[in-house]
């Protein structure tokens, strides 16, 4: 029998705020354990939470970007369970009244564009970190670090619209691209800035009924998501084929062994006892606020891509690459704005600029500080004006990586300007021709391929600076 999977994703996105959701501790990653924690985020007796305005604004941004409905009224609820990484014994989250309902994210499939629906988006606080496996952990113990406690998260719950692991992967790629565009998340998967759980079931293809679903956790990279889902889907199919039944359970992906395994069995009988948090007052998100956030939204990646194709005449492929990250697209547009034709700008950004970013493992922000778009534009203009050739321009670009001078200055300093003086070039061509009488004979006898040889000799004499077009013409004329 042929099966089809039904997948819904719950994605936790760590918001890029300076401070935590309910206290002023820094939300930055990577500090020494328990140095970014305080009585509030560690749930000391008597403390109270006060909501970070920025976290709410970021949530509204996300809601608008996926065309979800920002709810006019929402409340925070307590979700109760005991675990050492949860200092208050409850997590402040949203339950019955989330911040956003509805919306979608569009992905490309073989069958064309597909919308994956979003059920809801809500705000909640992160738990802390438990360390079990490191060498310094004593046997029989775990260690708790509260630095991450209270960092703001957005939970984005999708509809069960995803049909295979590839779609799940593409949805996550789109989602990551979006939150980075919106400036609400750094997108760093290794540091856990985006985390994903999945609800998975399978059913005979064509069936409308839903099978029993399992929850798969701990898939902390795009690749892991795809592999874990593949593993779980085939596991479920194997069980059904063998006449078994799928049990509703939570499974953990083990990326080393590439298997899904049931979570500890003691976690039975969850009863989260949600109720409205009496320490926090309700949110009434007024239209004015929503409209203000809307007016400040950046152009979304897919819109920008369409615009690059339609208005700048770029190929689809260039547009996709350039818009994959907002900073790249911004840089590209700044180059164009400095008066460079879009395709020339695109070639340089996709070629040299992205190569350097990759080589040096630096971000666009850092790169921009060294080679600003105006400086790159100046260089491209030198090529177009014929001041330097394309290959000399690449040499100039290499210099620009360490030399803050203008491209023009570099060209002058290094004597890289193209020789376009016809009288001077004519003299050099004459020299070359007289130095190689045999080749001149053979050319005249019909071996026209030798043109390249002559050009090469001229370039050698001028250390590459001769205007190649002019050199070609002169040689042809003199031998013709």
């Amino acid at each position, binding site marked *: 029998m042929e099966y089809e999977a039904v997948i819904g994703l719950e994605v936790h996105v760590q918001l890029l*705020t*300076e*401070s935590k959701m309910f206290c*002023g*501790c*820094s*939300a*930055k990653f990577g500090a*020494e*354990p*328990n*140095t*970014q*924690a*305080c*009585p509030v985020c*560690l749930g000391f007796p008597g403390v109270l939470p*006060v*909501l*970070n*305005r*920025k*976290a*709410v604004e970021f949530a509204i941004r996300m809601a608008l970007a996926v065309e979800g409905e920002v709810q006019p009224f929402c*409340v925070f609820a307590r979700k109760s369970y*005991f*675990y*050492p*990484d949860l200092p208050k014994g409850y997590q402040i989250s949203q339950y019955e009244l989330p911040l956003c309902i509805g919306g979608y994210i569009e992905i490309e499939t073989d069958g064309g564009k597909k919308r994956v629906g979003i059920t809801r988006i809500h705000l909640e606080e992160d738990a802390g970190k*438990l*360390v*079990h496996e490191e060498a*310094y*952990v*004593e046997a*029989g*113990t*775990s*260690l*708790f*670090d*509260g630095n991450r406690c209270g960092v703001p998260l957005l939970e984005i719950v999708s509809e069960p619209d995803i049909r295979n692991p590839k779609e799940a992967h593409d949805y996550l790629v789109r989602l990551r691209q979006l939150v980075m565009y919106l400036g609400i998340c750094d997108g760093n998967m290794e540091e856990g800035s985006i985390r994903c759980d999945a609800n998975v079931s399978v059913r005979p293809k064509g069936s409308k009924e839903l099978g029993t679903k399992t929850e798969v956790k701990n898939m902390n990279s795009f690749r892991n998501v795809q592999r874990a889902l593949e593993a779980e889907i085939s596991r479920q199919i194997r069980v059904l084929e063998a006449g078994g039944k799928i049990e509703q359970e939570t499974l953990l992906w083990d990326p080393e062994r590439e298997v899904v395994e049931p979570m*500890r069995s003691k976690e039975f*009988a969850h*009863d989260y*006892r949600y109720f*409205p948090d*009496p320490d*926090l*007052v*309700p*949110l*009434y998100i007024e239209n004015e606020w929503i409209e203000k956030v809307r007016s400040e939204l950046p152009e979304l990646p897919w819109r920008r891509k369409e615009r690059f194709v339609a208005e700048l005449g770029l190929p689809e492929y260039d547009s996709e690459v350039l818009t994959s990250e907002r900073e790249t697209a911004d840089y590209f547009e700044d180059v164009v704005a400095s008066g460079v034709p879009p395709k020339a700008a695109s070639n340089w950004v996709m070629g040299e600029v992205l190569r350097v970013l990759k080589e040096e493992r630096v971000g666009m922000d850092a790169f921009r500080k060294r080679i600003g778009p105006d400086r790159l534009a100046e260089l491209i203009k030198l090529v177009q004006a014929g001041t330097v050739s394309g290959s000399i321009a690449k040499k100039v670009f290499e210099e620009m990586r360490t030399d803050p001078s203008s491209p023009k200055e570099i060209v002058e300093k290094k004597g890289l300007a193209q020789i376009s003086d016809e009288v001077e070039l004519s003299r050099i061509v004459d020299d070359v021709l007289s130095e190689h009488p045999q080749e001149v004979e053979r050319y005249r006898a019909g071996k026209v391929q030798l043109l390249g040889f002559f050009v090469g000799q001229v370039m050698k004499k001028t250390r590459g600076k001769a205007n190649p077009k002019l050199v070609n013409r002169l040689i042809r004329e003199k031998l013709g």
Partner: protein
Amino acid sequence: MAVTLEDVEKVAYLARLKLSGEKGRFISQLNRILDYIAQLEELDTGGVPPTSHVLPLKNVFREDEARPSVPREELMANAPAEHMGYFKVPRAIE
């Protein structure tokens, strides 16, 4: 809606309370209290909005500014067990 021994055990599990001598007393006491509370059932509250907050407060925020945290020695001065700057607990996974 009488509370049984099983209910008390389930609730004690959820609340992480080890009960010993109280267990029997709690069954009868909780039943008495819940019986008393049951008088609310006679009230028709259809259409009555719930009051979670007595004050009509809304949209209380702090601005997103990070301030220094509490020194770790102070924060962990009350810790029942610690190790290398972490709070130490019995192993939390199998």
